[in-house]
């Protein structure tokens, strides 16, 4: 085992003077630095290698609020590869949710192109975009957005209804997904009879119903306690493992960001 480098007393005092002479403050600062250094090192080890699934080129998005034009994204260019688990982070108003919506085809960029699975979705017409969304993308929302008067099994079927999948196939998929997200014992329950974590697992299963290549999640743990939040992260990892799904998660949760393959940080509408 290598010996740590020796530090003279003078050097140590000079070092501690940056922390008001408080060694605890200094340890905390070092610890924080160490964590950052370690994360950086880990990400580098999980560098994307598969084909590109999402490609944004110089994407700009401007909203008009009253007479003012507010710029949400300022020339974002990035690539996300198949099978990647990416965390989009940043402060509120940094543009991360806008970015997610553009990737999901829920909104169109003011300029630039958004390609998903080699399709320039910013140029698709509404009807084709809906079909594309239904078949390629799955959405998970912070507030789950389940149908309150449909049982869990029917809730899971909803995306398949829009995709005109037969009932028999739907039932088979429901069973499989419910088992995968561990809600197979709750299929006959109404959403109000589930816990928050269960509801989110149902919402994730629903998003996977049409076997999308891309799963977009907007603050999926934002409405959950830490235990359930951790379970959801594990579920994402399991999904990626089992279905090979590319996952993009908008989050403030450092745990998710830490466990993602890559963290894309946004600040003032640009990737930093």
């Amino acid at each position: 085992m290598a010996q740590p480098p020796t530090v003279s007393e003078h050097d140590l005092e000079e070092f501690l003077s940056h922390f008001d002479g408080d060694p605890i403050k200094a340890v905390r600062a070092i610890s924080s630095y160490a964590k950052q250094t370690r994360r950086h090192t880990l990400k580098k080890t999980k560098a994307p290698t598969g084909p590109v699934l999402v490609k944004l080129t110089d994407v700009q998005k401007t909203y008009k609020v009253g007479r003012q034009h507010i710029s949400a994204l300022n020339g974002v260019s990035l690539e996300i590869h198949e099978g990647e688990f990416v965390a989009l982070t940043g402060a509120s108003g940094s543009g991360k949710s806008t970015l997610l919506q553009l990737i999901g085809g829920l909104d169109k960029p003011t300029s630039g192109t958004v390609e998903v699975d080699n399709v320039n979705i910013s140029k698709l017409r509404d009807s084709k975009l809906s079909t594309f969304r239904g078949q390629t993308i799955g959405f998970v929302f912070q507030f789950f957005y389940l149908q309150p008067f449909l049982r869990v099994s029917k809730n899971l079927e909803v995306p398949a209804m829009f995709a005109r999948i037969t009932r028999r196939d739907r039932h088979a998929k429901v069973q499989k997904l419910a088992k995968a997200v561990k809600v197979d014992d709750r299929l006959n329950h109404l959403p109000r009879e589930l816990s928050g974590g269960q509801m989110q697992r149902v919402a994730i299963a629903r998003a996977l119903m049409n076997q999308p290549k891309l799963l977009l999640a907007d603050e999926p743990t934002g409405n959950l306690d830490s235990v359930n939040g951790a379970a959801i992260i594990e579920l994402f990892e399991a999904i990626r493992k089992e279905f090979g799904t590319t996952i993009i998660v908008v989050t403030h949760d450092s745990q998710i960001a830490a466990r993602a393959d890559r963290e894309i940080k946004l600040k003032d509408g640009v990737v930093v």
Partner: protein
Amino acid sequence: MIRLFDATTLAFTKLRTRRIRTIVTVIIASLLFGVIALAILMLQGGVNSVNKFSAGSLTDRYLATASYSSQIAIDDDTLTPKLLDRATEIYTQLIADKKAAAKKLGIEYDPASEQKPFIEFGDDIKILNHASSAAVQAFNEYVATQPSAKQELEKIIAQHQPSHVYPVTTSSTRGAQLKPLTNLGEDFTKTPQYPSGGTPGVEFGWQYVDRAVAQSFMLPDSQLDKQKNVQDIPIVAPVAKVEEALGLKRLPNTATAQEKLDRIRYIRNHAETATFSVCYRNTVSQNQIQNAIDVVKETAENKDYKKPSLIYGLPDANSCSGAVVTQDTRTAAEKTLAGKQDEFQRMFGGETIPMQQKVTFRAVGLSPNGLSAESFSGVGGLLTAIAGSTLEGQWVVPQQMYDAMPNKQDFDKFLPSAPKLSDYFNYDSYRVVAEFNTAAQVKTFVTKTGCGNPYCDGTTSAIFFGSNSVLIDDIRNQVIKVLAYSAMGVGLIAAIIMMGMIGRVIGDSRRETAVFRAIGAKRNDIRLIYFMYTIMLSAIIIIVSLAMGALAAWWIDTKIAPDISVQAHLIYIFADDDIAFHLIGIWWQALIALIGLIVLAGFVGMLLPLSRNLARNPIKDMRDDT
């Protein structure tokens, strides 16, 4: 696009959101539409029932009575001077004849007692004096040269091509009087008064009408065959009068529906035994009776009263015989003079011999009672007024039966006299019942020929006769019109309520629409879901409103239909006993229109909020919600 079944599944969840609001909306909209449904059911039920009751009666026929009256007025100052000259000539001749006759009979005659043939106004204007027999004769000679009322009316009617024309004539007593002979006999002291409402007695006259017109009011042959005395005048009589004639006491108003029905059936089954007698008295007979009454009265009231030399006494009240002379203290000369004066009167058309005759009518049919204020109370009364199949005048002698009487000549005195001046204007009139094949035809005839108001001075008049079949048609059409407007108004209100409800539900579903869009729903999928939601909501409102309407109609029917049934049996006397009046009937076209209206209201309510929803940015809706 999403499958219909799946769209229905998702739409069904919409009904469960905002449940209280949905229930309130369904109740209010259903109440509004239920009122229309109620009106439709009751209208059709009423029409069906009237049709059922009236099958075979005059209500099924399109009849109008038309009359023509000459409008030449005797006091018209434009009549030719020749007519004045002719009246003067007749007057002069009459005075000369009377003078000669008086001289021959040896009695006195004062020409000044004669009415002058004309009246003068100033120096220039002279008009015929309607009180002068000479003027009337001159006038009648003149009008005889003009086309008769019969000719004129036939000409007018022919233009409208009726299927049948039946002459109608009214009985005439020519100054004589008819008095009812009741169980108590003849009431000498009272002059019959025409009732202001209800049913007048036969003493006020009757009409001679073709049997084809009266047929639906006739008793069945099996009953008529029982009538032995065919020398009595056959007559269709009002139910109330037959009831009296059968010795039945009128039922109190509190009588039950069943009691009323039993009564009408009893009357119907025994009507052939009912007879009505009146006593006919000419003016001389009446004067002698009056003389008898006056003498008794004056003797009792005035001690100084000097009795006349010739006194009459009242006959037996049941005999309809003439007054009997109870005292005649006249001298031989007085008697001779009186005889000569009678002869003088007879020479110039005066009556001098008393005539009286008991006239008996036998009931050969039943007509509904006359309308009175009481008739108009309640729904049953209204029915009487609008749907009643009535014979005008209520007392009707079927012409063919009258003609078949062996002693008909005994009663020919009651037949209308030849046209003559009856008042200032109408010297001649003629009346018929004209039958048409369709309601439209009879309506055109009445509209074009009739006067339409009581102050009309037209020569012709035409009104619906025998029934109100055209009125029923009109009422139905009017009700349909009112119903259509009401339906539009109510529909608009209900549509606004439904629009508010659907708009609110769709508005509340913005986030859900956004989520659906995010998970792959196309705009048409969303449209189909809300389309199905609207269909389901409309279907619930349709079912509830029809159920409410039917329930209300059933309730009203059970409450008032029994009474109307009685009323209907009183109107349609010969309708089957088993028939009952009901106020529930299915009018498919109107109900389908109502259903269409509800669905339309739903879709009108859906369009705007849905199109607004679909035009929104789903992201914004999701963001707004969080």
